[in-house]
């Protein structure tokens, strides 16, 4: 991926290995990206492609047995590879925060909304209880929760799914973080609530000039929210670039395949056969080399077993990994 000027987050060659029964699971392999303040990067990919692990690796929340390596993992000049548990704790919930898919698992059922909202602020900032409560009410109002002050005494189970997700967002914003990672924040919600929550996230992110990584498997969400897109397959980023370029000129066979799989209202003929990607994701245990998509790829050739070059489209920021210059075997023959 091309360099972003003055990135707040810079990731180079991030690799995650997990020891499993039969050997090593090479779950994430050689990921590169940069993110600037005020930018939204969407990481899109199917389940198991390594999206959540990537975000946990940045937040320093990986299980201890998972081995994390990288050439660079920097947050605003801080080398996260060298940061110890104390340093990471002082960053998390403070300068970088995370929003998870299922708020019920990340909200503590035994504590009130108010306690949980103010916790990070009391921990990281030199503020009193009163100031922390005021800030909590302010943020609950900001995320569109009515009767905010009265919510502070409520417990998570007393709120609907949509309200809990709003509380999670308010909690993530308490300390005015510079980086937010939202992992499938709207996947469990109704489409109507999803639209409201995404609007809220995008508005707040612009207003506060936060850098945001939004992880999703939903191409519609990506198109509407992303500045930059990273398409992930079996632990690798196979295509990255500005949203307009990736959707306008999808190039990697996997990206093109995914876009053919979804019915698009107004475009796809109703009832017509949808595109498919036959086959299954390869095992990432043991020796993993070559293009991970080759077993399912229409364009696969013998060279796909070897080293895969990183290529750029005319727009330099739009990159993809494929042995074919255009992502298509047929175009090469006629060229």
């Amino acid at each position: 991926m091309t360099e972003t000027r003055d990135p707040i987050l810079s990731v180079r060659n991030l690799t995650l290995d997990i020891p499993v029964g039969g050997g090593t699971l090479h779950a994430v392999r050689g990921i590169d990206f940069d993110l600037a303040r005020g930018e939204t990067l969407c990481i899109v990919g199917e389940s198991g492609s390594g999206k959540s692990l990537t975000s946990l690796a940045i937040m320093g929340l990986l299980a201890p047995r998972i081995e994390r390596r990288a050439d660079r993992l920097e947050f605003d000049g801080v080398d996260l590879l060298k940061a110890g548990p104390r340093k990471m704790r002082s960053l998390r919930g403070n300068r970088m925060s995370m929003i998870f898919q299922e708020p019920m698992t990340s909200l503590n059922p035994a504590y009130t909304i108010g306690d949980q909202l103010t916790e990070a602020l009391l921990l990281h900032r030199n503020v009193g209880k009163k100031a922390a409560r005021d800030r909590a009410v302010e943020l609950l109002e900001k995320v569109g929760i009515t009767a905010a002050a009265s919510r502070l005494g409520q417990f998570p189970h007393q709120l609907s799914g949509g309200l809990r997700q709003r509380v999670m967002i308010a909690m993530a914003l308490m300390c005015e973080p510079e980086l937010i990672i939202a992992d499938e924040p709207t996947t469990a919600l109704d489409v109507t609530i999803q639209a409201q929550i995404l609007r809220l996230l995008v508005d707040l992110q612009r207003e506060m000039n936060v850098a945001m990584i939004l992880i999703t498997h939903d191409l519609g969400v990506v198109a509407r929210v992303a500045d930059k897109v990273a398409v992930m397959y079996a632990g690798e980023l196979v295509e990255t670039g500005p949203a307009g370029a990736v959707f306008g000129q999808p190039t990697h066979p996997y990206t093109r395949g995914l876009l053919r799989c979804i019915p698009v209202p107004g475009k796809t003929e109703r009832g017509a056969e949808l595109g498919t990607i036959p086959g299954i994701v390869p095992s990432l245990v043991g020796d993993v080399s070559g293009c991970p998509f080759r077993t399912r790829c229409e364009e696969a050739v013998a060279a796909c077993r070897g080293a895969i070059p990183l290529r750029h489209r005319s727009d330099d920021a739009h990159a993809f990994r494929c042995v074919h210059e255009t992502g298509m075997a047929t175009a090469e023959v006629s060229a």
Partner: protein
Amino acid sequence: MSDATTPVLELRNVSKVYTIRQGLFAERKSLRAIDDVSLKVERGGVLGLVGESGCGKSTLAKILLGLETPTTGEVLIDGEPVGAQDRRKLARRIQPIFQDPYSSLNPRKSIADIISLPLRVHGIGDAASQDKAVREILDIVGLPARVMNSYPSQMSGGQRQRVAIARALIMKPEIVICDEPTSALDVSVQSQILNLLGELRREFGLTYLFISHNLAVVEHLATRVAVMYLGRIVEEASVAGLFDHARHPYSQALLESVLTPDPALGVPDTQLGAAYPNPIAPPSGCHFHPRCPKALPQCSSVAPRPLTTADGRIECHLFDEEKAEPATA
């Protein structure tokens, strides 16, 4: 008693009321999960059922499957009331694909046993042909044959959903009740399943009730669509009628929430300010009025009556005048 014009599936004024108690000493309250629903599904048709969570979609599915009895009203399959049909015969005609496969797959049975169970219960074929059928259906739903000896706990959520789909389809039923069948699947698998459901329908004349929160998927697969809000069908129309000219403000809001993959567009503002109402204390008048951007004065006090339109039905005061001049059909 059935002929070509008899709807294969029909609901007549079906209601389902649950009695619930919130807390140990609280008084009992009734929750009207399904409220006077009448619907017909013609043979080979796909009725899409959409609406926010909690509106009653799964309850309706369970009633059709005979897993819940309606409090009032009746369900007819091929013109025969469901209560009167032999349950085993019913099971061969109507099969479910549920939303949450984990709770419906026996954790102690192998995948091959789970999928072939309906064949064994109904005594269809011998062991060899059942084994062959299982392999075929596994291939169709995108699972490798080696999972036959696996157990549900060893599979991913997506794989378990495919097992549930295989189990329903192996009976080649007449009617399939699909309750969010592809919600847990990746899009590349979802499209295979949607294509498969489409193929099977064309080939065997199957009829589906298709419940999904993904409106683009419903638009793609359904022939007719019913929009549900707090247990009531507020609009029912052909796919073209609903997706090209939605009339009910709630249908319109649902459609506006669909995020098509167009990077030139941002996130829409659906103007559905307030949250989904509490079903124990539904709003007076039209249940939708507190969230409706087009509400009229009478909407908060008078419940709208269902009106027949050229293309189906609608329940909304905005269309009251049309009652005077019945739609031409």
